[in-house]
């Protein structure tokens, strides 16, 4: 039953219900058909339509008294032959496209029952066209023809139906309503089993279709402006316009309505029109036409003129014209209600306008376009590509036809390569959902089968890493005219800079820039850039801890790409491959960056990260891009032999945290795992010795390697929630990064090893594996345990034991932070930790409440961690 109350008689409603029921069954049965089944039906239908093209054209003329027989025959042929030519090889059943590289398969599904309204102006051709589309897409169609054209449409449907059934189409696939009424349309438009309304017709039908609440293709009136620009081929343009405007006596809604002609060629154009059989109206004649042909109440053209011959119209309005007159041309001085002939006229009367300039011509075309023709069709004749492009940009039309007839051009496939159609989508300007030439793809639901993809992963590190004692000697390999050594005053005093100088390549002029040993400030970075410029440096040697190396990275960036906007480059991102902001490609200068770390923790010598502070704005800027990675890393333990114990512990645990977090990261890969596992093993084996016996060169050397190896892991797999917590806590309470990491670490392992409240979306991991990877780590360290849970517990105990041995405070409370103070800080801590990008790669997505629990757990201290429901 129709969903809306209808005023139809019971008998008529019963008739319509039968029609819909039959169509619904046919559509359902049609879903079983293959592409071959469908194609076997379509071709004989097309041939039947072609064979009956003249018969149907005669019926249409007899019934509607509109148009030209010869042109209607051509329309019927275009609607069959041209449409078939377009659809014949198009897949429309089942899999229609596959994109293996994207893992996407497109599957075409029919819509079901389509209620199809057809116009009086193109009755049989529209039916032929829509029947072919329906069968090609396995849909059933109910035709609601214009009440003054239903008999010819019924015959067109009969011809198509019989050909279709004879070749295997399901019974009931087409029905043409007998003696259709507007009430029928309303009833069917609201029927629950009608899936799509395809309304090609007048304003009322299209509006009703769109108001029904059903998916609809509504294609209504136009008002085609034509710009005849001064560079145009006038002879061709005039022939094209006459051909188009007189085709079927102007009944195609894409036909030309007002031609705006550049003043320079206006007289010549009108002369050409006159020579070829147009009657150019004098002022009084144009007024006569306007009064007779346009309804002063509605502003629309009189229906009685639609599709009539120019001579008949002239006779009817009392205009004397030659008997062979094809077209009546009426000059107008503007557009709008004061100029009645500026509206759509589906008969051979054409308005012309003399434009004083190109700008004025475009303005008038826009006015015509907006006077009832939005979204439909526009035409331009010009040899100037700029004019054509400009016209296309400013006109609101689904079809902009260039140097060809509007009506036949818009139909597609004859004068251009547009899709052949008898239904013009008019976009939102015309209240339509598409600007396309309606075609088979609008009669399909296209489903996308999207397979899980695995994003490309990477493993990027500097291509040269020199390690072990005296690795610094490798500096000799890097010739340089001018090198800037970026370091700290302390390291300079310790003689490390002299060692570097000693091993520089011959002829290298080296200058030293000593900067504070603290998170670099923008001001300091810019001093470095000035120094690089002053000395025209081609190489930087960054000798220092993470801060110095970070500063050098940003100096390099700003030296090579002075236009770089650091604040913009620091914009957050979720996936480095899809980030909004790209680091600069074009380089004004080229400089080699060699990083020689003097601490064993940050691993900045191989990472693509850098952090700086802009004190003027109070902002911390974190940059991440592989272009920041140093070109060469010198991991020489002689630079860390004098690290103080506290720094040894802090940086060593930072290194361990990097490795543990990279190991369970959602971006972990076999490549990063090998680094992470090895770094963890080295830390457990050598950090206590490096801490307890600072002169133990092997321990120092191995910890220096461990820091670099862990950094290679997290450069590619990133870190996790431990870093998010440590960043927030460290910033708030002024606690060193490594120390802050240490306070969180056992609690985070327990958190990640538990069944997550919320999983992180990660196509790279097929299952939750964090607990298993922790267990694997425990196995690697020989910690024992039978079950995964036991192994994870043993790992936590081992980490806690290490932290104890390194004399780390066991809790946040142990730092002297009161419970009240910590409680007050908690909202900021959780907010900042949640804003921190570090956890985006954590295996478990933390809830804000879980971040608070982790902070409180760390506040209470070690030895209390437990795995909640080990997964």
């Amino acid at each position, binding site marked *: 039953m129709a969903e809306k109350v209808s005023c139809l008689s019971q008998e008529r409603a019963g008739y319509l219900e039968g029609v819909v029921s*039959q169509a*619904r*069954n*046919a*559509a*359902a*049965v049609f*879903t*079983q058909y293959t592409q071959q089944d469908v194609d076997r039906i379509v071709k004989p239908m097309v041939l039947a339509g072609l064979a009956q093209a003249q018969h149907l054209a005669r019926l249409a003329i007899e019934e509607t008294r509109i148009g030209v027989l010869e042109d209607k025959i051509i329309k019927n042929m275009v609607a069959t032959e041209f449409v078939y030519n377009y659809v014949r090889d198009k897949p429309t059943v089942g899999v229609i496209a596959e994109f293996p590289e994207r893992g996407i398969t497109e599957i075409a599904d029919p819509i*079901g029952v389509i209620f199809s309204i057809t116009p009086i102006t193109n009755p049989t051709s529209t039916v032929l066209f829509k029947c072919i589309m329906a069968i090609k897409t396995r849909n059933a169609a109910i035709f609601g023809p214009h009440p003054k054209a239903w008999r010819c449409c019924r015959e067109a449907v009969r011809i198509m139906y019989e050909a279709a059934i004879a070749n295997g189409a*399901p*019974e*009931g696939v087409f029905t043409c309503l007998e003696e259709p009424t507007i009430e029928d349309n309303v009833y069917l438009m609201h029927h629950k089993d009608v899936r799509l309304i395809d309304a090609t017709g007048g304003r009322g039908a299209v509006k009703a279709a769109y108001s029904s609440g059903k998916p609809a293709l509504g294609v209504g009136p136009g008002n085609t402006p034509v710009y005849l620009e001064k560079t145009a081929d006038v002879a061709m343009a005039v022939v094209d316009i006459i051909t188009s405007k007189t085709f079927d006596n102007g009944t195609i809604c894409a036909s030309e309505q007002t031609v705006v002609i550049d003043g320079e060629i206006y007289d010549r154009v009108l002369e050409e029109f006159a020579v070829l059989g147009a009657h150019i109206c004098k002022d009084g004649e144009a007024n006569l036409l306007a009064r007779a042909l346009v309804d002063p109440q509605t502003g629309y053209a009189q229906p009685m003129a639609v599709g009539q011959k120019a001579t008949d119209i002239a006779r009817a309005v009392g205009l004397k014209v030659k008997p062979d007159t094809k077209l009546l041309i009426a000059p107008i001085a503007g557009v709008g209600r004061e100029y009645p002939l500026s509206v759509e006229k589906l008969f051979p009367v054409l308005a012309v306008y003399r434009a004083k300039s190109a700008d004025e011509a475009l303005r008038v075309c826009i006015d015509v376009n907006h006077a009832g023709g939005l979204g439909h069709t526009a035409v331009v004749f010009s040899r100037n590509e700029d004019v054509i492009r400009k016209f296309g940009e400013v006109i609101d039309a689904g079809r902009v036809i260039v140097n060809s007839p509007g009506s036949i051009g818009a139909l597609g496939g004859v004068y251009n390569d547009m899709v052949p159609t008898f239904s013009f989508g008019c976009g939102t300007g015309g209240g339509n959902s598409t600007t396309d030439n309606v075609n088979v793809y609008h009669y399909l639901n296209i489903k996308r089968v999207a397979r899980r993809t695995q994003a490309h992963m990477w493993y990027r590190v500097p291509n040269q890493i020199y390690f072990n004692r005296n690795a610094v000697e490798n500096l000799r390999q890097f010739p340089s005219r001018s090198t800037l050594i970026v370091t700290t005053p302390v390291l300079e005093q310790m003689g490390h800079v002299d060692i570097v100088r000693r091993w520089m390549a011959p002829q290298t002029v080296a200058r030293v820039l000593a900067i504070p040993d603290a998170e670099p400030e923008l001001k300091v970075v810019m001093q470095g850039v000035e120094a690089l410029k002053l000395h025209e440096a081609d190489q930087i040697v960054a000798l220092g801890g993470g801060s110095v190396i970070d500063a050098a990275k940003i100096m390099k960036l700003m030296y090579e790409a002075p236009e770089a906007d650091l604040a913009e480059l620091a914009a957050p991102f979720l996936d480095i491959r899809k980030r909004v902001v790209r680091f600069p490609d074009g380089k004004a200068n080229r400089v080699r960056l060699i990083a020689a770390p003097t601490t064993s923790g940050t691993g900045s010598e191989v990472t693509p990260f850098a952090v700086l502070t802009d004190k003027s704005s109070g902002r911390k800027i974190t940059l991440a891009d592989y272009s920041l990675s140093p070109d060469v890393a010198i991991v020489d333990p002689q630079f860390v032999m004098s690290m103080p114990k506290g720094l040894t512990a802090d940086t060593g645990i930072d290194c361990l945290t990097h490795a543990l977090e990279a190991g369970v990261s959602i971006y972990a890969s076999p490549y990063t795992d090998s680094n992470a596992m090895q770094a963890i093993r080295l830390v457990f084996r050598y950090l206590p010795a490096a801490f307890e016996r600072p002169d133990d060169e092997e321990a120092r050397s191995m910890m220096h390697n461990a820091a670099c190896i862990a950094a290679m892991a997290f450069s590619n797999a990133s870190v996790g929630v431990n870093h998010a917590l440590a960043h927030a806590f460290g910033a708030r309470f002024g606690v060193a990064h490594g120390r802050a990491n240490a306070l969180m670490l056992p609690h985070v392992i327990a958190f990640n090893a538990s069944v997550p409240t919320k999983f992180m979306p990660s196509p790279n991991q097929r299952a939750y594996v964090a607990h298993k990877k922790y267990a694997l780590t425990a196995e690697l360290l020989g910690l024992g345990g039978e079950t995964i849970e036991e192994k994870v517990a043993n790992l936590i105990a081992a980490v806690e034991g290490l932290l104890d041995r390194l004399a780390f405070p066991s809790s946040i409370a142990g730092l002297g932070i009161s419970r009240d103070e910590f409680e007050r800080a908690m909202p900021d801590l959780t907010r900042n930790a949640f804003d921190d990008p570090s956890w985006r790669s954590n295996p478990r997505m933390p809830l804000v409440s879980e971040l608070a629990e982790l902070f409180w757990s760390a506040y209470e201290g070690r030895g209390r961690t437990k795995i909640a429901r080990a997964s």
Partner: protein
Amino acid sequence: MGQARLKMEGDLVHALRSALDNLEKVDGELVLDFTTVRRIEPSALNAMEEIAARAGERHVRVALEAVDVSIYRVLKLTKLASRFT
């Protein structure tokens, strides 16, 4: 209460008509075996409509067995699926 089984073989409409006739004799459940049915036509849908209506009148359950998935889809689209068990 008994159960009768009918295999839908050969011309489907003919087989369904036989099932319709059999409905008069069934007291309980009639099982229609669709194992060999690969495609269904509108005329068969009409016959199934009749079976569903008659079964309702006679309080007989009609079960469809081994229905091919593409035919099941047709029955869903025509609202017939819910009228059989």
